[in-house]
C-alpha cells in the first residue's frame, strides 16, 4: 500500500512497510541524506526532523505514524525564517567540527526558537540535551542559538 507523506512542502508517495522508520524512508526512498543515522534508538538526535514543527527522532518514528503531519528536514528547514536565521548563525559562527551531528542540532535549535523565541541559557541546554555532539561543539551551538534569537528580537536584516 503506498503511503503519502509531505516532505519539505512536497507531497511524496512511498511504497514501504508500515514500520519502516521515517529516517530510512527519507534517506533511502526519498534521497534526503541530511538526517543522519547515529544510534537507531532515539538517544543521539542525529536523525532529528520536524513533524509539524516538533522535533522528533526519525530513527524511531515508523512511517505509518507520520500521517498528515508535515515533515521538515535539514534540506528544507531554511525555507522558513527561523530556519534561515539559525542556519546563517550556524555558518557565521562555524559551529561544526566533524559535522555529523549538526543537522540534528540545527533541527532541535529551530524547533526551540519556533516555540520559544527568546530562550534562556537553561532553556537552550534543556532543549538541546537530546542531541549528542561527540566533538564537543556545544559552546558554539549555544552561541549560534543566542545569535539567531537576538536577530529576531532586534529585528535584524534577516528577521521576518
Amino acid at each position, binding site marked *: 500500500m503506498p503511503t503519502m507523506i509531505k516532505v519539505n512542502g512536497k507531497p511524496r508517495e512511498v511504497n514501504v512497510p508500515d514500520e519502516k522508520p521515517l529516517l530510512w524512508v527519507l534517506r*533511502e526512498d526519498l*534521497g534526503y*541524506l541530511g538526517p543522519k543515522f547515529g544510534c537507531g*534508538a532515539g538517544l543521539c538526535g542525529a536523525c532529528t526532523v520536524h513533524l509539524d514543527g516538533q522535533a522528533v527522532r526519525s530513527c524511531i518514528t515508523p512511517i505509518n505514524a507520520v500521517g498528515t503531519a508535515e515533515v521538515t528536514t535539514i534540506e528544507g528547514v531554511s525555507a522558513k525564517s527561523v530556519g534561515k536565521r539559525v542556519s546563517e548563525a550556524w555558518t557565521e559562527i562555524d*559551529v561544526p*567540527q566533524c559535522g555529523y551531528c549538526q543537522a540534528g542540532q540545527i533541527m532541535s535549535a529551530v524547533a526551540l526558537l519556533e516555540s520559544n523565541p527568546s530562550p534562556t541559557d537553561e532553556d537552550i541546554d534543556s532543549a538541546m540535551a537530546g542531541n549528542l555532539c561527540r566533538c564537543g561543539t*556545544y559552546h558554539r551551538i549555544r552561541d549560534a542559538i543566542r545569535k539567531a534569537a537576538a536577530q529576531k528580537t532586534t529585528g535584524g536584516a534577516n528577521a521576518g
Partner: protein
Amino acid sequence: MPADSPALATDRRFVIKAMLAAGGALAFDIEIAMAQASKPARAGSIGGAASRISAYVAIAADNTVTITAKNPEIGQGVKAMLPMLIAEELDVAWEAVKVEQAVADQSRFGEQFAGGSMSTPMNWMPMRQAGATARAMIVAAAARQWNVPAAEITTAKGEVFHAKTNRRAPYASLAAAAAREEVPAEASLKLKDPQAFSIIGRPVAGPDTPAIVAGKPLFGVDTVLPGVVHAALLTAPVRGATLKSHDPKQALAMPGVRKVVVLRQLGHDDAPVDALAVVADSWWTASEARKVLAAEWDNAGREKHSDASFAAAAKAAFATRPAISVRKDGNVDAALAKAAKTVSAEYSYPFLSHATLEPQNCTAQFKDGKIELWAPSQMPNEGKDLVAKAMGLPSEAVTVNLTRIGGGFGRRLQSDFMILAAAIAREVPGLPVKLILEREEDFKLDFFRPAGFHKLEAGLDAKGRLTAFRTHLVGFGAKGEPGRGSELPNDLVPANLVPDAELGLTLLESNIPLGWLRAPGSNALAFATQGFLDEVAAAAGKTLPVFMLETLGEPRLVQPPKLPGVPDIWQPPAFHTGRAAGVIREAMARSGWQGAAPKGRGFGFYFSHLGYFAVVADCVKAGDAIKVARMWVAADIGSTVINPMNAEQQIRGSMIEGIGQVISGLKVPIAGGQVQVANFDAYTLPRIDVVPPIEIAMVRTDFPPTGLGEPALPPAVAAVANAISSLTGKRVRSLPYEA
C-alpha cells in the same frame, strides 16, 4: 630548528612540476621527499612513517585557486589548515581559494593520514615552501615579460605588481609563461615574515561548513551509487569468537533480502572477526533481517576475561616486579628509605570506546577484478593495502575515495571496516554495497582505549621536594609488546626530572582489541601521574602547580633516553621545562590561583604531541551530582596558531572529552569476554548541559607550531579528577568518578 622539535622534514628534496592544465589553468604538482623516513618510535602517536609530502595547486583562468586537501578530515580542521599554509606563501586571497578533497593515492600524494596531531609539524614548512615556490615562478615570469628585475616585483591577493612602471597582472594571465620558468632552488626561497601573514593566524571557517549546515551528503554513510545494495553485520557477543553454525533461512525469507554472506577471520590482523552480513535492498531491511539471524559462536575460553579478572591480575602483578623495565635511574628503594616522607597509591581507569557519531561504514564495489571503496578512514592508504592483501589483489586494483569523516578520535586508524565491506562486495560482484554498522556492532567492534592499573610511589625530602618516583603500570598487550595505547613512555613526567626513578610495565592478555584514542597513552597517564602528584604535593604542604614548578626546576631541555634501533627523526622529543613552567604560570594567573586553592579547584599539566598544556578546573555540587563550573587552559604549541577559529574548537572539545571521561561515567565494562555497552544510554557521552565556560590562553614561544587535536585532553582529565578530589575530600583514584 629548536632542538626540542623532532627534525621533521629536514634534508628535503623538492620536485616541482609546473604545467598548463585544461582551460589555461596553471597547475603545480609539488612533491617533497623527506630523506629520513623510517618507522616511528611511537607508532601509537604518529600512525605512519612520513616519507613524502605532496601538494597540488591550480590557478584557473579566472584567477581562482584550487588547492587539494590531501589528508582526511575528521573534524580536526586540516581541510582548511594545509591549504592556508600554501595560500599564505603563494600570496593569494583566501576568498579565491577552493579546497578539494584528494583521493587516497600514496603514489600521488605521499602520506595521507589523520593521526598523532602530526599534520601541523609535518607540513608547516613544506607547505609554505610549496606556496613560495609557485609564487617565485609567477614572479619570475612577470619579470621576464615586463623586462624588470624580479626583486622589484611584489605580489598581493593573486596579483603581481611593479610599482615603478605602475603595472599589475593577475597570476592567471602569466600561466603559460610561469609554467616554462625554472623551479627555484629551495635555498633561494624567501618565506614571508610572520608579521606579514594575512591568512595564517586569522580565523578561517571550515571549507565544508556551508554544505554541512545545508545537510549536503558529504560523509561515508551518504555515499550513493547507482544500484547500491546495503549490508548489516552480525558479530559474536564475545569479541573474537568464531562462527560455529548459523541458520539464515528466516532472514533470507524476508522480502528485499538478497543474501547472507559468511565472513571468516577478516578485519584487522590482530583482531580478526567472524561475521554474518545480510545484504538487502535497503539498510533497514538488512538490519531487520540481522535480528532474526540464528548463529552459534565458539568462545574458546574468551569468556574468562572480565573487569574482575583484570583487577585480580593487576593486584597479583603489583606484588611482584614489573615484567618489563622501561626506565631505571639511580636507586628508588634507597631513595625512598631515606626520604623524609613517602607517598604511595594505586590508580586505575577503564576501557573506553571511540564512539564516533558516524558509525563505521564503507561502500565497496567489486568489478572486473578491481575494487573501489568509499571510506571514512584516517589511514586510507593502509586500508587500501590491507584490502588488497585480504582480497588477494595487487594494490593497483584497489581505489579508495575519501569521504568526510563523522568523527575519528583514532577509531578510523584501523581499517577493519574497509576489509569487511570489500569482502561482502566480492560476494555481490558488480554491485556497490554499503556496509553500515549498527551502533551495537560499532561498540562491539571497536579497538578500545586500554584499561590500566598503576601502582605509584614517591619520596619527598625534608623541604617537601620530590626526590624519587616509581610507577608500575599493569596494562594490556601480547608477547611482551604493549598494545596500542598501553605503552609506558620512558620520558614520563616526573620520572625524567628526579635522580631516582623507575618505570615498569606488566602486560595482561585479553580478547579485547586495543586502539589509539585521542592522545593515546597520555589521556590515561595524565590522570594517574597528575592525580598522584596532587597527593604528593599535598603531603608536601603545597599545591600541585607550585609543586610542579618546583619539580621542573630551571628552564632547560630534558632529553629522553634514546630508544635503541630507532632513527633520530622518530626518537621521542625532548621536554622543555621552561615551556612547561610557562603554561603552568599562565593557567595560575588566568584562574587567579594564589596560595591555597579554593575547595573544588583542581589542576593538571601534561606534555604530549609536542604541546604543553595546563588546565585548571573548578567543580561544584549540583544536587547529588558534581559539575564543572569553569575551566582555564593555557597552551604552548609554539610561535603561531595557524587557525584560531579551529584551535578554540579543538581545545574546547578536548576539555569536554576530559569532563566526559571523569564525570559523565564513560566506561566500557567487560564481563564474560563481552563488551557491556551497546548504545549511548550506557555509554554516556557528555551533553550540552555539563559544559562550563572555558577560558583559553595561548602562550606563544619561539618554536615551530605543532598540532592541537590531542595534547589538550590529558591535563583536562587530570584537572577535573583533582577538582573532584578537592571538592569531596575523597581522592579520585579510579575513573570514571562514582559518588
